């Protein structure tokens, strides 16, 4: 009987989970995109706003649990807000007699593909128990601590000396979500909490599907980007999710440069805010991404101001979405949870200088290059083809390449200052830390392929028009 009940519970969580996040996130997404909670129907970008709402929902859910510290109260409060958000989301649709415009066949394929992937990914995520090192020692151990204490407060045991190995200072957005799922079922095991990975992965995949186009570049993007992170997406590590969202952020900046839609820029910023709550490296990705975003915004400021979707309410809302991260930083300071890397300390600087002098940096560079080789190979090939075929270089890929460079430089410095044995640190982590760089290279390759295809389609159009003109003349 309990198995049947739990089966129903799982079904409900799978169906209602995304809706819960959409409702909760609409409270953030609507003012961010439209400046109010009841936008006009004709302005709405259904799939894009659902995705942004889901990401916003995960952020708000985490923020609420951080504020109230209790899983139970957090779930009640979030549930109430989610219902309110869903009502606001649906009111304009009901007013217009539920006139959802599914504009073309693409949208139907998009929705169908998204649903299929959602259920296909469910199996590798929740049928394989947690076995990866960091997943057990850090991320899902934190989730277990939160679940058993029913709180993210000190009672979870962050200050216990026996859990020092677990880096209690790491962000706890995904562990909190995992603990909430276990709380809903009422027990802990090594399978169900992994459902949190699906909920975090899913919005990024929907975002990816908004790039749908009948072209090889899209096939390349959809087949390579999410799956390149195997097995880091579903084994309980956070590196795959971090890299995926970083890539989505760079993709959106690229699309902004193409279409000048303010929406893409806003979503890109939300993605960057989201990743600082996934993993510590997210801060580095955030800095790299924000540097590029500032440059892009600065060079496009005149075009952006004329865009009707831009609202100055965007700035306080963006700052509001950083709140969960700030609250977690405050807790960390209060509870004296510090990072083992000692970034900025005198010893770290002396380590950096020593490793620069003793040639250790060559080891780091070789290890990093080893991870980037396959994609650099691909990129080199695309560049050669572009030069031979005289395809004009498109600026859409530049943000991804610069972000990759900044992120890679940051990771290089982190390896230089690491207090751990450098060899050990490189062997155990370089394949994961380079995922974000690789993800940017994939995005850059996508935009280069896109520009090749665009050039071809232009050439084809000219050829077709020339043929039709000559036929008319004859």
């Amino acid at each position, binding site marked *: 009987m309990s198995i049947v009940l739990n089966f129903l519970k799982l079904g409900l969580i799978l169906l209602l989970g995304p809706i819960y996040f959409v409702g909760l996130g609409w409270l953030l997404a609507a003012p961010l995109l439209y400046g109010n909670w009841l936008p006009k129907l004709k302005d709405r970008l259904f799939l894009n706003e659902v995705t942004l709402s889901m990401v916003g929902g995960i952020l708000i859910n985490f923020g609420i649990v951080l504020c109230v510290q209790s899983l139970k109260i957090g779930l009640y409060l979030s549930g109430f807000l989610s219902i309110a958000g869903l009502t606001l989301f649906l009111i304009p649709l009901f007013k217009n007699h539920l006139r959802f415009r599914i504009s073309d066949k693409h949208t139907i394929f998009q929705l169908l593909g998204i649903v299929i992937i959602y259920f*296909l990914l469910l199996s590798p995520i929740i049928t394989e128990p947690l076995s990866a090192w960091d997943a057990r020692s850090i991320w899902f151990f934190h989730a277990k601590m939160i679940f*058993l204490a029913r709180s993210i407060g000190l009672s979870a045991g962050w200050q216990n000396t026996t859990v020092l190995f677990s880096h209690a200072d790491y962000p706890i957005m995904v562990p909190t979500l995992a603990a909430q799922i276990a709380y809903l079922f009422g027990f802990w095991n090594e*399978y169900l909490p992994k459902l949190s990975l699906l909920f975090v992965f899913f919005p990024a995949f929907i975002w990816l599907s908004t790039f749908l186009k009948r072209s090889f570049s899209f096939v390349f993007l959809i087949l*390579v980007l999410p799956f390149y992170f195997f097995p880091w997406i579903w084994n309980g590590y956070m590196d795959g999710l971090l890299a995926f969202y970083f890539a989505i952020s760079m993709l959106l900046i690229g699309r902004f440069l193409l279409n000048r839609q303010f929406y893409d820029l806003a979503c890109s910023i939300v993605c960057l805010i989201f990743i600082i709550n996934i993993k510590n490296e997210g801060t580095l990705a955030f800095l790299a991404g924000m540097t590029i975003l500032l440059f892009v915004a600065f060079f496009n400021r005149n075009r952006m101001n004329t865009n009707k979707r831009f609202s100055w309410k965007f700035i306080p809302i963006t700052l509001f979405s950083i709140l969960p991260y700030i609250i977690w930083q405050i807790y960390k300071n209060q509870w004296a949870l510090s990072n083992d890397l000692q970034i900025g300390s005198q010893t770290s600087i002396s380590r950096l200088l020593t490793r620069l002098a003793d040639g250790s940096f060559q080891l780091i560079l070789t290890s990093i290059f080893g991870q980037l080789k*396959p994609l650099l190979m691909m990129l*080199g*090939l695309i560049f*050669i083809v572009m030069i031979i*075929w005289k395809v004009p270089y498109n600026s859409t890929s530049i943000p991804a390449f610069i972000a990759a460079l900044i992120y890679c430089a940051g990771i290089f410095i982190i390896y230089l200052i690491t207090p751990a044995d450098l060899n050990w640190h490189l062997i155990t982590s370089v394949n994961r830390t380079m995922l974000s760089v690789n993800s940017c290279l994939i995005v850059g390759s996508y935009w280069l392929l896109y520009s090749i295809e665009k050039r071809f389609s232009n050439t084809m159009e000219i050829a077709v028009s020339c043929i039709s003109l000559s036929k008319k003349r004859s």
Partner: protein
Amino acid sequence: MNNLVTGFFRKKILGIDTKKLLTILVDVFLLAWTVFNFLMRNQLFAFFCFALFLFFQIMRSKPYSVLAGTLIVIIIFNTRCPFAWNDIIISNLDVIVRPSFFVKNLFSANTGIGENTVDKKIVWMLSVINNNQFDNYNLSDSLDQDGEINQRIVETTWPLKQDKDSKIIFLRPEEMINYSSCDLIDQKWEIIVVHCP
């Protein structure tokens, strides 16, 4: 940027035909790329790159399908994507073939800790703690310094905590000499559990 690049293809530079200049540049770039890959032990790709360049030069048309095909080959043989696709298919088929196994695991408390996820020593230590209903435990110095044993036992037994004053101690056989006054409770996989007065 676009204007700069397209402008480059239209004009002559220092009186030299841009087509010729471009060919020279491509040759230099390709040579450098080939040498670089060769030095990085990517000999096969270096050769492949050069062959592809010749192919593109010979072909008058622009075969996009050749580029797409080459990229697919690189993706299949040089990335982990095929493993991911394979894993999705296998795990879904596995669920279809034996659904009851997964349903039982999914909806039972404390499932998933076995020899396929943690070391057999941990599975045994955990069973000793659970079967004897210990309130706390401690690890000997040697086991405490063993990262795998220490981390796994802490996270699998949580919220049960290690206690330095605990009378229940897990140790290695060679450390038994330090615990001669303690009573042996159980031993397996080169780990002994003792009760000290």
